[in-house]
C-alpha cells in the first residue's frame, strides 16, 4: 500500500515538474524572417536593412512589404526592426541575404560575420548581391506560389543551381572561400525585372569586396573551371564558313555568317595542376562531353568529319572563353578559381604563398588551358 502511494506521488510529481515549455514560441506571434536585404544607409557607416517575413493571416493580401530599418551594423538594423513590428522576429528560417551594390563594393564581411556567428542561422543560406539596391529587389510583388519573396528567391536559386547555371553559394561556401588563403568567393547576382526577382549572373569578389559582375553565359565557363557538370547546357555560335560544304544538301543554303548550336547533357570535369613552378605556370585540363540538341541550320551530322570539326571548334570556343575569363580575373586580381590554394597544397615551407604574396603573384600566373571535347550523340534525328 505504502509502495503504491509512493509510486503515485512520483508519477504525479514528474507530471508537475516536466510539463510546460522551455521557451514559448507561438507561430502566429512570430515574424519569421526569410530574407534580409542590406544596403548602404544615408549616413556614413550606416546600413539599411529590409526584412522579409512570413505572414500567417487569414486574409491574404497581395501586397507585401518588408520591414525597413537603419542601423550601424546588420545586427543593429535587425534589432531596430523590432520596434517596427508587433511580431517577434526570429532568424531560424532565413534563406537568403542580399547585399546592395554599394555595400558589396565596400566589403560585406562586417555584415556577414554576425550571421556566421549566429547559431540559429543555417549555413545553407544563400549569400547574394544585387545590381540595384537590395530594397528594390525585395519589393518585387510577383513570386508565384511562394508565400513571400524570400522563399521565392530561395526556390529560384535552388532551381538555377540545380540546373547548373551558376555555382552554389551558401553561407558556408562563402565563408570558406573568404577565409581560405588562395581563393576568393563568388556569389549569384540578383536583380528585379517586371516586378520579379531574376538571376542575372555571378559576382566576383576580392576578399569580401565585389569587383565585377559577369553574365550567365560567362558563368557557364566559371562553373566549368570550378565545378563539374552533370547535366549542363551550353549555347555556342559557330562560323558557317567551314561547314558550308556539309550544308549544301539542304535547301536553302544559309546566308548568315554563323549559326547557333545547343549542347545539352553536358558532363565535364576539370583538373588544375601546377605545371612549371619556376614560371608560375598552371595546367587547366577540362574534359567536356555533351549531346547536340539544337542546330538552327541543317548540317549533315551523319559524317564523321563534321562531328570531328564540331568537337574541335567547340574546344576552341571553350578555350577562348576560359582564357578571356582568366585574363579578366587577373586584371581585377581576383582568384575566384582558387589557383592559390592549388599552389599552396603543392609546395611546402618557403614556396608557399602568404596572403600578400598571393595577391601580388596572381596577375603573373600563366595558364595552359586544354579542353577535350566529345560529342556523344545528336538527339533522335539524323
Amino acid at each position, binding site marked *: 500500500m505504502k509502495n503504491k502511494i509512493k509510486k503515485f506521488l512520483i508519477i504525479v510529481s514528474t507530471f508537475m515538474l516536466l510539463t510546460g515549455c*522551455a*521557451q514559448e514560441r507561438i507561430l502566429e506571434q512570430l515574424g519569421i524572417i526569410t530574407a534580409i536585404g542590406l544596403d548602404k544607409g544615408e549616413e556614413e557607416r550606416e546600413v539599411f536593412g529590409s526584412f522579409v517575413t512570413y505572414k500567417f493571416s487569414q486574409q491574404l493580401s497581395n501586397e507585401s512589404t518588408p520591414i525597413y530599418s537603419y542601423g550601424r551594423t546588420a545586427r543593429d538594423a535587425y534589432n531596430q526592426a523590432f520596434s517596427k513590428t508587433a511580431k517577434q522576429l526570429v532568424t*531560424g528560417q532565413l534563406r537568403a541575404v542580399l547585399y546592395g551594390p554599394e555595400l558589396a563594393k565596400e566589403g560585406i564581411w562586417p555584415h556577414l560575420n554576425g550571421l556566421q556567428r549566429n*547559431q540559429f542561422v*543555417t*549555413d*545553407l543560406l544563400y549569400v547574394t548581391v544585387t545590381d540595384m539596391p537590395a530594397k528594390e529587389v525585395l519589393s518585387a510583388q510577383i513570386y508565384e506560389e511562394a508565400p513571400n519573396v524570400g522563399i521565392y528567391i530561395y526556390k529560384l536559386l535552388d532551381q538555377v543551381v540545380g540546373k547548373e547555371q551558376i555555382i552554389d553559394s*551558401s553561407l*558556408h561556401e562563402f*565563408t*570558406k*572561400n*573568404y*577565409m*581560405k*588563403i588562395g*581563393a576568393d568567393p563568388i556569389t549569384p547576382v540578383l536583380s528585379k525585372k517586371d516586378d520579379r526577382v531574376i538571376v542575372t549572373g555571378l559576382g566576383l569578389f576580392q576578399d569580401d569586396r565585389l569587383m565585377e559582375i559577369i553574365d550567365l553565359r560567362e558563368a557557364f565557363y566559371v562553373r566549368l573551371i570550378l565545378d563539374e557538370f552533370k547535366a549542363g547546357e551550353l549555347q555556342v555560335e559557330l562560323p558557317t564558313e567551314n561547314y558550308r560544304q556539309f550544308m549544301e544538301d539542304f535547301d536553302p543554303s544559309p546566308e548568315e555568317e554563323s549559326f547557333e548550336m545547343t549542347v545539352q547533357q553536358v558532363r565535364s570535369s576539370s583538373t588544375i595542376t601546377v605545371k612549371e613552378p619556376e614560371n608560375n605556370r598552371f595546367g587547366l585540363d577540362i574534359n567536356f562531353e555533351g549531346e547536340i540538341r539544337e542546330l538552327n541550320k541543317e548540317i549533315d551530322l551523319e559524317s564523321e568529319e563534321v562531328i570531328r570539326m564540331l568537337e574541335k571548334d567547340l574546344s576552341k570556343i571553350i578555350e577562348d572563353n576560359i582564357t578571356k575569363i582568366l585574363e579578366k580575373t587577373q586584371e581585377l586580381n581576383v582568384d575566384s578559381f*582558387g589557383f592559390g*590554394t*592549388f599552389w*599552396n*597544397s*603543392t*609546395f*611546402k*615551407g618557403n614556396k608557399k604563398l602568404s596572403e600578400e604574396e598571393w595577391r601580388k603573384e596572381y596577375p603573373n600566373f600563366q595558364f595552359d588551358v586544354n579542353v577535350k571535347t566529345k560529342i556523344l550523340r545528336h538527339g533522335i534525328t539524323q
Partner: protein
Amino acid sequence: MKNPLNIPEHLKFRASYLFFILFNILIGVGVVALPRRVFQHAKQDSWLVIIITAVIAHLLLAIIIFILKTYKGTDLYGILQETFGNWLAKVFGYLFIVYFFIVYLSALTKYTEFIVVFIFPQHSRFIIGFLMTILIAYCIYGGIRVIVGVCFLFFLLSFWLNGVLAVPATMIDTNNYFPLFEIDRNGLFNGLLVSAYSFLGIEVLWYLYPYIRNKEKTMLYSQLGLFATVIALLGYVIISIGFFAPKQLESLIWPGFVMFKVISFSVFERLDIFAVSFWKFIILPNLILYAWLMTRSLKRIKHIKQKHSIWGIIILSSIGLHFIDTQRQLEHLLKIADYSGLFFTFLFPILLLPFAIIKRIRGAKNEKQN
C-alpha cells in the same frame, strides 16, 4: 591477496559489452572540439597525429589488461593495496576519485553549455544539468547491469548520427589535405598531447574488470571498442579538415556541430539542433560511467553505499555547475581535466607495469619451485 573481490555471478556481464562501454566513454563532449584542437597544432597532418596517439592508446590498453590479468580478478584499489600498502592505496584511490569528478563535471558543464548556446539561450544551466543528474542517479540505483545495458542501448541509438557526416564528406576540398607531412616536431608533440585527451576513459577497465564473466575475451573486445572509437575520431578530424578552410577551422569552437549545420532533410530542416539534443545519448553513458566509477571507488575505500554517495556527487556537481558560468572558467576546468587525465590515463599504467612484471616473474619462479 589482501582483498579478494567476490563479485556475485549474477552481477557479471559478458566481455563483448566492453566494446560498447569503451566506445561510449571515449566518445563524449570532446569529439566536437577535437578537430579544431588538433588542427591548431598539427594543421593538415592532424590525421597522422590521431593515428599515432591511437597506437599509443592501444598499447596502453594492452598494458592495463596485462596488469589486471597479473593480479587476477581484483580492481585498481586491490592492486594498489597489494603493491603500495593500505595507506598509499587510499591516497591514490582518492586522487582517482577527484580526477573522475573533474572529468565528470567538465563533461556535464560542457554539455549544458551546448544546450544553452544552441537551443535555449535563456535557460539556467543548473536546471538542465540537474535534470540530467537525476537520470544518472537512476542508473546508479539500477547497478552495473543497468549501466552496461544503457551503454549498449545508447550506442545503438546514437551511432547512426556519425553516418550523417557523409553529407559534409561530399563537400570536402581535397586541396586542404596537401602537402602531406609538413608537420614539425613542435606541432607533432603538441598535437599528440591534445589528441591524447580524447582517449581519456580507458581507465574504466581498472574497476570494471572484476565484473567480466569471460575474462579471457577482455583484450579482444576492449581493443575493438577502442578501434571503433579511433575510426570515429579520424572520421570527424578528416572530414572537418576538408570541409572547412584552415583559418575557419581554427576559429570554430565546435566544428563537429557546425558540420551538422549543412545537413538538411525535407522533413527535418535543421539537423544541427537535433544533433545537439541527440548528443545526450552520447553524453549520458559517459557521465553514468564516471559517476559509477566514483561511487564504486568510494565503496571500495570507505564502504559507503553507492546509493548514498551518488547523491553527494550530484549535490557537489550541481554546486560546481552553478559556479562555472563563463566559457573561460569552463576552459580552465577542461584544462585541469586534460592534464590530470594525462597522468591518470597515460602515465599511471606505465608506473604500475614494473610491479606487475616483477609479480609475474616471482609467480613463475614459485611455480617452478613447487
